């Protein structure tokens, strides 16, 4: 990056983060200045549950299947971490057969995991 120098390259990201924050906080501040601020009544501050009183604690317990999905996702996300550098050099790597075989084995092993999950029916909703 000729004009920016080494550090300037990533400063761009920092500046954009600042802009994002600016957008959020700016919106908050403007609306805080502009909006009416009537006194709040207790009823208005009830959580939105179709007008009924909340039953039981809100932070209810969820089914483990959400967890299992997230789990499969984590594994496959990590897999992309290895696939991307491979994909970057695939075209230029001298021994393309080796590159292909390596990734084929890698993916096949993970596909076994996917099939296992499939077979155990954890990919289903019910």
């Amino acid at each position: 990056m000729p004009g920016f120098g080494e550090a300037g390259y990533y400063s761009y990201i920092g500046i954009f983060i600042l802009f994002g924050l600016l957008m959020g906080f700016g919106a908050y501040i403007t609306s805080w200045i502009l909006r009416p601020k009537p006194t709040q009544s207790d009823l208005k501050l009830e959580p939105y549950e179709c007008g009924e009183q909340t039953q039981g604690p809100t932070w209810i317990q969820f089914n483990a299947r959400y967890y299992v999905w997230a789990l499969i996702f984590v594994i496959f996300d990590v897999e992309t971490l290895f696939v991307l550098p491979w994909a970057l050099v695939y075209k230029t790597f001298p021994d393309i057969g080796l590159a292909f075989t390596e990734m084929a084995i890698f993916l096949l092993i993970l596909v076994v995991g996917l099939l296992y999950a499939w077979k155990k029916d954890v990919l289903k909703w019910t």
Partner: protein
Amino acid sequence: MIVPLAHFLILSLIIFCIGLYGALTRRNAVGILMSVELMLNAANINLVAFSRFVSPQSGTGQIFAVFVMALAAASVAVGLAIVICIYRNHRTIAADKIDLMKW
């Protein structure tokens, strides 16, 4: 890079120690796992910093960091699954209530 290597190491040391303290004292099992993740992150910072300062071209430290990340993800997945299991059977995730290893 103008910031000296030692400062990166010290940052990583601080985070590692915080994580270690958390892993030793948190009662919530999920909290313990998070502290372990802190420690792994600290280790990764160390690896990348050494990679940048000692062998910037080979990137060995970065490769190790990639493997550490993969292992950390795998370990947290299994660790949390174990916590779920314990939670199901004992209705608690307080680490000092779980003394199954005693028997």
